[in-house]
């Protein structure tokens, strides 16, 4: 399963990078949904060939929440707000790609320093940390509220991978709790977007600037 695991991890990194380089919100939402589906494989790949109930439950709920529910909520929010594209991000797409690369480097460096040796694949911790940093950068550099939620999701996906890779003993309970938390968070953010859209007629976060100083 090591190869399958590596394949999933590499694909996660690539989806991150493609996300940084895309402007269409629909595409971005699909990419994050794809990440959610990929994440569902991780608990199975780690416990293979035994099929633990906890792992399967986690995989199923990850698939359901990250792969199905979030995209639906976000696409709904996007449609309501009639926002199709991230028009002018604070950082352009090409520089964003390079920043994403830098984040991957930073994640590798940090993982190297930490030298946590419980991981199944040497890629897991670097990939997780780079996803966390990329998510943070995405939240900071984009203007649409939906994009910011997407960045938050990438960040949370990173912590998911980190949790799975670090907590070797009983990770799945913690992960399930985490998943529930993120689920509620995205739901709350969805409601907030809905209200913002109703109040402002747009979801451009950079125009939320009446409060200063």
């Amino acid at each position, binding site marked *: 399963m090591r190869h399958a695991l590596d394949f999933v991890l590499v694909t996660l990194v690539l989806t991150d990078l493609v996300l940084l380089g895309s402007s269409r919100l629909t595409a971005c939402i699909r990419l994050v949904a794809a990440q959610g589906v990929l994440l569902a494989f991780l608990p199975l790949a780690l416990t293979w060939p035994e099929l633990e109930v906890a792992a399967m439950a986690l995989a199923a709920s990850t698939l359901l929440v990250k792969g199905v529910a979030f995209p639906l909520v976000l696409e709904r929010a996007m449609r309501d707000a009639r926002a199709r594209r991230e028009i002018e991000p604070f950082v352009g797409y090409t520089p964003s790609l*390079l920043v*994403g690369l830098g984040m991957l480097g930073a994640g*590798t460096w940090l993982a190297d320093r930490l030298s946590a040796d419980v991981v199944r694949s040497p890629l897991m911790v670097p990939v997780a940390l780079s996803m966390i940093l990329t998510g943070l950068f995405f939240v900071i550099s984009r203007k649409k509220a939906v994009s910011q939620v997407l960045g938050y999701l990438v960040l949370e996906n990173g912590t998911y991978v980190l949790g799975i890779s670090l907590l070797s003993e009983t990770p799945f309970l913690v992960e399930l709790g985490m998943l529930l938390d993120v689920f509620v968070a995205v739901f709350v953010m969805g409601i907030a977007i809905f209200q913002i859209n109703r109040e402002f007629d747009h979801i451009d976060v950079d125009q939320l600037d009446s409060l200063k100083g």
Partner: protein
Amino acid sequence: MNPSVTFGGPLATALGLVGAPLLLGVINKTKAFFAGRRGPPLLQAYFDLVKLLGKGAVYSRTTTWVFCAGPIVGLAATLVALLFVPLGGVAATFAFQGDLFLVVYLLGLGRFLTVLAALDTGSSFEGMGANREVKFATLAEPTLLLALLALIRVAGSPWSLSPTLGNISTASSLGTAPVIGLVAVALVVLLLSENSRIPVDDPNTHLELTMIHEVMVLDHGGPDLAFILYGAALKLWLFATLLAGIVVPVRTGNLAVDLGATTLVALAVGVVVGIVESSMARLRLIHVTHLLVGALVLAAVALLLAVGWSR
């Protein structure tokens, strides 16, 4: 390290010297097939070369020796580089620690002289072409280096191209497949951009404003143009065989089989390029940057992954 000379290396180099223009013919035939034309004969590139070599050259009085040196150095640099690039599992004529840097910078030297020659004409069009060429090269060169370094890390070999490609085989490639895949994608983009193919540049265009490479060599004629064309063919061959050696690693140990397989795959790469050219339009210049940065990022990801592996 002593340069290792075997029988296979010179044979591979000779194959490249002879076969390179054929690759152009394959691409053009493929394009003609998809366009529903009969197209030029497979060996048209050879005919062109012979024809051009037989002609004289006219030099503008504003040009200097740099203008003449461009095509010659360009061809010479590519020729020398070819001596260091293995044909799949068949080691190159020469190999030493760090030869990949020599290869990358020989190609860079060739480009540099071509650009200087273009600037030497003082023509604004050629200057514009040179500008674009250099702009894209600043992204393409690090990509090539990173991709090769990633390969070396994966193969766990000394810093030399021949043993690296020799170590990549079907047996070991399952675990390293992600890295190899990323490097291959990056190399495909590089192949298209470095050899001025669609979607980066259109080799058939006649509109100077949209050209990149072609516009730089507008003022060259006769043997000079032949050198340039031959050099370009060699460069294409170099990239195609490199790609073929990675994607389909046939490493039987039998010289004829290895050579034949890699050559065939290289010709297949030509077919793929033809298909790409038939099915795509040229990208807007601003998107070319995006594409090349993408390739750079892929190569860098490959390198980081490869480093992560060997930890």
